[in-house]
């Protein structure tokens, strides 16, 4: 049983408070929808959880059973897909997956990478540079890169952007599979993605 525990996280941009005392917990089997209007801090909250922003107050714990995952091990356990996190344009789809898999797992994950590419209908494009892929294909590839190491915790920020109906099916399958591995935080305003959620955390402006 994996859990993400967010305990009293606040954040301000300069003198404008954005998030105040955010508290929630999500566990394996749960997909927590983070909702709120534009500018309410959904992306910032996910970045704070991932540790990409310094947390001025409060803390975030990643737990496997009762054991807290140390910060240094987090990169092997956590996956994240967000709008402002790109892949390497001049590398091919497969090279990108292998690179991130190698960093996070240490080993060669060619088999898993190829299988994932197949599931996303990207197998025929695996040797093309990311630059030449369509925006929808790139989004699917980003999702694959976020789960290439089968993470125990997953953060998704608007994962459905640029995806067509078939892409949304792929996303649904991915989330369904992932929530058995561990908690998923899903920040979105897209009604097509609301169905994935098992619970909701609403942010106000």
């Amino acid at each position, binding site marked *: 049983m994996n859990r993400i525990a967010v305990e009293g996280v606040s954040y301000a941009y*300069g*003198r404008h408070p954005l998030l105040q005392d955010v508290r929630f917990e999500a566990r394996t089997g749960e997909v927590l929808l983070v909702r709120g209007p534009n500018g309410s801090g959904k992306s910032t909250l996910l970045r704070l959880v991932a540790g990409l922003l*310094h947390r*001025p107050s409060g803390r975030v714990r990643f737990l496997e059973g009762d054991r807290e995952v140390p910060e240094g091990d987090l990169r092997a356990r956590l996956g994240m897909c967000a709008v402002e996190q790109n892949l390497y344009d001049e590398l091919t789809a497969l090279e990108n997956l292998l690179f991130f898999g190698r960093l996070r797992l240490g080993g060669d994950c060619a088999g898993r990478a190829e299988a994932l590419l197949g599931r996303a209908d990207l197998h025929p494009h695996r040797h093309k540079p990311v630059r030449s892929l369509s925006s929808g294909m790139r989004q699917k590839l980003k999702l694959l890169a976020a789960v290439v190491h089968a993470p125990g915790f997953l953060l998704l920020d608007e994962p459905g952007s640029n995806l067509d109906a078939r892409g949304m099916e792929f996303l649904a399958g991915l989330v369904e599979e992932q929530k058995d591995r561990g908690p998923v935080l899903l920040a979105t305003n897209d009604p097509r993605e609301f169905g994935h959620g098992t619970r909701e955390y609403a942010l106000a402006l």
Partner: protein
Amino acid sequence: MKPIVFLWLLAVIVAAFLWSPPASGFVGESSRIVFFHVPAAWVASLAFLISGYWSVRFLRSRDLEHDMKAAVAVRQGLLFTVIATVSGSVFAKVMWGAYWNWDPRQISITLLLFIYAAYLVLRQSVDDPLRRAHLSAVYAIFAFITMPFFVFVIPRLYFSLHPDTFINAGGKIEMGGRILATFLASLAGFTALFALMYRLECRLERLLLAKGEHA
């Protein structure tokens, strides 16, 4: 505290020009510069040390107050570095005939100027306070670490005309009684003035910081 320091410095100025005799071996009255030039250079180096200290503290604590203390030390260090450089140049002109002699000490102080200036430009180039604090702290520490190479390299490349500091290589104190007394009094006075200015600007910055957070 403030009036004591001001009276003290007033006494130092009077003593420097009227009470203390000029040192032998210098052109005219030029030796009197030592009472102002050396303390300014001392405070400039002290400020560099303090900014390094608070930079390390910041990286450990991530407390913006520590970052602010490092930045204030740099700003005031820059002021005293300019005073030391200008007063040194005037002395060099009187003594050796040129404002700039490529003396090791002149070069060393310009390095301090370059570091301070680069530090302040870096701070201006970053908007987010926490990021600015991290980047400038790392830069200050990195500059601090490479500084000893400069101190080692420069005297081996350039010939020095600069008078020995008041304790010369033999460890003997070179100054006469009144000169030494005035010099030490000035050193204490400059340090106290710096402490006063430093605390004042920190208070000001703290108020600005608080205003920024609660407005």
